[in-house]
């Protein structure tokens, strides 16, 4: 307590003058009363005098307004706000490795449920030492309740409806909490969230603000760093049509977000019956898987690809996919015209006969006149009209005798190739191609993907005793025909086993738009003669091989690679006829769905290097058709990185299913000619919730926020350390101090004293007869 006077200095001076005046007056009064006062005793005079002076002093004191200053102190419990995320992402299942989740029933395993459990535990522990405020946030901060200090029991809170918040604004929630509770002492802020912020103030800014306010932010993260537990089939690629008896392959893109690795199985059902099953070991994330079956029944068949369902998967509908494939009884009709039965012929014929899709007719030119030609179909003579030639899908000319095939037949064969057929030319030593060009110059020259010197006739007296190695050209390495294994390393291993060769047909040069696939190994370009090449010839394709001893490749794996190589070439050449369309391109977008306003990247991947060469210099377009049938043409440009890819961009405006189509005619082809490719793809444009875009928790952000503000971070890995979090929140109370001014004169004591003194003096005067 500190005494003080509330009156100003001027007034004090006045009071001094008044006091002096009063003293003079009292002196005169006492002289006047002296006669009367002579009857009083000295003691009585002293008492009266004292009383009167006391009254005057009291009156003067009152005028001076004396006061006392006091400090009042109040102790309060500190405040801990618990902020619980109630955005849409909190509905997702929590991480299975969280011990709280494992202890919960299956219906209460959402992130929100775990958050409520944690919030309840925290309230129970903190309520004794803190004032706990429970709040929820999504885009705004809302108070759920404030617990009474030192509450004896903490009932469960009523959070209201399930979390449906459209966004997660953790930064805003922290900022709002700091602002709203600025007057309280915050021991810390506890944030219960998955950390996946979708808007509002940046977390590091909010963290900086909390650090400035010396308020640590403790974070408890829900969910895991991995997307939601899900095993799904993202994409299935299969031919829309397949030949009866042929292999039907399904290429799947599977995403595993169950565990790493995951041993599972993929089942293929045809019309409900299991036809194949494949054991898989999937890493986390995306994997490419293939599974195949033999198409044994005609018609449009339903194939279902099924993965097992796992507990707590966020979506089990995507564990299977259904594809419809049309199985057609159709064969690839191949005509093999061979001049003589060389060693290669002995192995080539059974290799082609083995393919269930190939219907082979051979014509051995040197055979006896009454010989029954070999093959699935026996023919007596070569085709003699365009219609006859068109009955074949692929023709193989194996070192033919040019004198036993007419110019007319060659022209008709050329027409067959031009309109989509395939031609394989295998050069041999018997007749050679020089002679073939001499006899049938124009058409053969045009058909071949290489230039042959027509004067370079075979020298039969030359002995070829020096072996040479062959190697795939850089373009050949990427070509599907040179791929004997899907896996690159396995493919290289197979190619490395093939022995050296001794003879090849001489080639002048490879035509500009042709692809050289295989060449003789050598250090100089002159040594590196082309051994195999291919090019697109109008709607068809022509393959050239200058080797007639590929049977040497039957070492070491016997007919495995040898047969596959030949049938792969035949199928490649006959693909247009077999499938009805070229499948050497793939059209897709970078994502399956977009939000309005986002840009979809269109990708036209060219799978055939020969086709890429054919398209060089041409302008390609893709059309995008909206559900309202509005068509926008999007130019496609070659990939600047050099990949066999054309890219285009389309900004999605309308919501719905968009159809992208790409079609291209062969250069110089008539409008009625079949296009080189005609492919389609669909993608979706739809309104997307920000909350559903990314299903993994952002544990790193939550950890960073806690670290920045010197708070504690807890996630599923250390969920049992909640006590550590509680202990980290200080219990220092909030002490509030208040200065209070008490005016002494303005109190009952002062008044009573005044009245008592005046009354006493009057009473004594009366008593002693002065009044």
């Amino acid at each position, binding site marked *: 307590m500190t005494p003080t006077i509330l009156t100003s200095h001027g007034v004090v001076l006045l009071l001094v003058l008044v006091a002096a005046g009063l003293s003079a007056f009292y002196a005169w009064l006492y002289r006047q009363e002296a006669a009367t006062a002579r009857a009083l005793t000295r003691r009585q005079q002293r008492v009266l005098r004292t009383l009167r002076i006391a009254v005057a002093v009291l009156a003067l004191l009152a005028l001076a307004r004396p006061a006392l200053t006091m400090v009042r102190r109040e102790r309060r419990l500190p405040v801990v706000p618990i902020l619980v995320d109630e955005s849409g992402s909190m509905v997702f299942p929590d991480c299975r490795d969280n011990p709280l989740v494992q202890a919960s029933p299956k219906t209460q395993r959402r992130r929100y449920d775990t958050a409520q459990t944690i919030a309840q535990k925290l309230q129970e522990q903190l309520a004794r030492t803190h004032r706990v405020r429970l709040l929820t946030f999504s885009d705004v901060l809302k108070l759920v309740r404030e617990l009474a200090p030192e509450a004896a029991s903490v009932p469960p809170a009523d959070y209201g409806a399930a979390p449906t918040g459209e966004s997660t604004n953790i930064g805003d929630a922290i900022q709002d909490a700091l602002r709203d509770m600025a007057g309280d002492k915050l021991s810390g802020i506890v944030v219960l969230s998955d950390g996946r912020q979708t808007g509002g103030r940046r977390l590091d800014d909010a963290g900086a603000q909390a650090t400035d306010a010396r308020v640590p932010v403790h974070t408890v993260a829900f969910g895991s760093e991995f997307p939601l537990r899900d095993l799904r089939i993202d994409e299935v690629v299969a031919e829309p049509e397949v030949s009866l008896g042929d*292999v039907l392959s399904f290429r799947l893109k599977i995403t595993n977000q169950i565990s790493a690795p995951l041993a599972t199985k993929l089942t293929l059902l045809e019309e409900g019956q299991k036809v194949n099953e494949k054991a898989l070991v999937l890493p986390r994330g995306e994997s490419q898987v293939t599974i195949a079956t033999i198409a044994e029944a005609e018609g449009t068949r339903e194939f279902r690809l099924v993965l097992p369902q796992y507990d707590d998967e966020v979506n089990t509908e995507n564990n299977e996919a259904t594809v419809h494939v049309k199985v057609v009884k159709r064969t690839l009709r191949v005509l093999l015209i061979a001049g003589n*039965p*060389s060693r290669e012929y002995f192995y080539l014929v059974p290799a082609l006969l083995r393919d269930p899709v190939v219907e082979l007719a051979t014509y051995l030119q040197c055979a006896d006149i009454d010989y029954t030609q070999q093959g699935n179909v*026996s023919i007596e003579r070569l085709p003699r009209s365009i219609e006859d030639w068109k009955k074949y899908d692929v023709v193989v000319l194996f070192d033919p005798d040019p004198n036993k095939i007419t110019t007319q037949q060659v022209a008709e064969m050329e027409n067959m190739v031009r309109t989509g057929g395939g031609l394989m030319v295998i050069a041999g030593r018997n007749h050679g191609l020089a002679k073939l060009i001499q006899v049938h110059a124009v058409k053969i020259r045009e058909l071949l993907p290489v230039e042959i010197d027509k004067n370079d006739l075979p020298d039969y007296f030359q*002995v*070829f005793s020096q072996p040479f190695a062959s190697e795939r050209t850089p373009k050949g390495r990427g070509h599907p025909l040179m791929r004997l294994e899907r896996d690159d390393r396995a493919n290289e291993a197979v190619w490395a086993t093939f022995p050296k060769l001794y003879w090849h047909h001489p080639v002048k040069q490879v035509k500009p738009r042709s692809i050289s696939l295989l060449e003789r190994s050598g250090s100089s370009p002159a040594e590196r003669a082309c051994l195999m090449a291919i090019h697109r010839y109008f709607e068809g394709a022509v393959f050239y091989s200058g080797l007639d001893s590929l049977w040497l490749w039957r070492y070491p794996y016997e007919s495995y690679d040898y047969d596959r190589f030949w049938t792969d070439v035949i199928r490649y050449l006959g693909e247009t006829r077999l499938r009805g369309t070229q499948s050497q391109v793939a059209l897709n977008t970078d994502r399956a769905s977009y939000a309005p306003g986002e840009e979809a990247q269109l990708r036209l991947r060219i799978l055939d290097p020969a086709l890429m060469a054919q398209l060089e210099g041409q302008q390609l377009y893709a059309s995008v058709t909206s559900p309202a049938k509005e068509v926008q043409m999007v130019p496609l440009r070659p990939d600047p990185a050099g990949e066999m890819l054309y890219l285009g961009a389309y900004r999605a405006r309308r919501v719905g299913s968009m159809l992208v189509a790409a079609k291209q005619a062969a250069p110089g082809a008539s409008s009625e000619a079949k296009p080189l490719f005609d492919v389609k793809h669909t993608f979706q444009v739809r309104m997307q919730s920000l909350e559903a875009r990314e299903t993994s928790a952002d544990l790193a952000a939550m950890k960073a926020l806690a670290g920045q503000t010197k708070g504690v971070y807890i996630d599923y890995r250390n969920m049992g350390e909640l006590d550590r979090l509680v202990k980290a929140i200080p219990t220092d109370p909030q002490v509030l101090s208040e200065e209070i001014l008490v005016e002494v004169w303005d109190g009952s004591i002062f008044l009573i004293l005044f009245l008592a003194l005046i009354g006493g003096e009057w009473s004594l005067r009366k008593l002693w007869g002065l009044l």
Partner: protein
Amino acid sequence: MGAAVKMTALVIRPIRLIRLIWLIWLIGLAGPPAFGGEAPKADDEQQLRADQEKKRGPTSPGKDPAFLVLPRPAERSRMAEQLLTPQVREMTKKALAYLVRTQDADGGWSDKDYPSNTGVTALACLALMAEGSRPRIGQFGEPLNRGLEFLLANVRAGSGVIAGKGCNPHGPMYEHALATLALLFASGDMPWKPETRTVLTNAVEALKKSQRQDGGWRYLVSNVGDSDMSVTANVLWVLRTAKKCGFTVRQESIDRGVKYVEACAMPDGTFRYRYWGLQASPSLGGTGVIALCNQGKIDHALIPSARDRIAYDYRRYTVDDLKQRRYAVYGIFYASLAMYTCGDRYWVPWFGKAVEVLAAMQRKDGELWDEADNVLYPTAMAAMVLQAPLGCLPIYER
């Protein structure tokens, strides 16, 4: 050649068969056993196709088929890499070097009992072809070419029989059949010899004309008299190859030959040398299997027991026992053709034992021998056996 071949007739119980190769493939012979290790794994498509074809079994598509289409392997076989050990390669190298070294100036080959012989020459040519050489192409292209030209130069005018002055005194059919076979394989690779086609036409005609009443063939190029199993099997083999090369061979002719082979079969899997014989020869088992398989009789009832018999022999008997057999290398050669066709389950263990026997019989200069000390034809036959895993000669088929 073959005059002294007197095969012990063995008794085989004739049984009506289910499809041989069916049986073989169904019990897993079609695909060679995986040796493990580094061969790249087969993909699903190949596996599916292989399973499908295994169920279907071998086929002979066409109106008058010459080619046998066997089920494809489900995965890459390591058989060749495993069997072609350094020892085998060294033995082969020595054998081939011996053949090249001992070639006559006129391009032919001569053996002790068979001088300047088209049969021996044909076998030597086949051995060089088994390495991967072709006429004038490859490591042995030149000696091969000379050998083939020798054959072409030893065609008997009028008959078309390819047999020179050093042929078997009992008759030239072995020589003629083997020479025809060698020329058939080479005919597509000898454009500087356009007459080859004509020679072969006449040679095949000679074979067709010398089929006997009982359906078989014998040493003499004549259709009179009894036949024998060994010559018949060889001729059937040649006729099938001729069919592949565009020569017309009537199915009736083949069927009669097969019937003869069947008639020579004994219940225990061996074959008699003559159909009325009493004793069988182990060496003929292979010829029997080949004769039947090559004609598309892949499902023949006789084949399993013949195959099993060969397998048993090579398991049961020691190297010395096998070495001491009459015409041991001849027997090994024909057994190799049969066992190769039967698949790796039989082929691989058999080959291992056969190599031991051949190794024991190979002399330091590289030649092998028979009991009459003929060395060329055994060396040529052994070289073909040792090089079978290379897969360069179409006589080894599966």
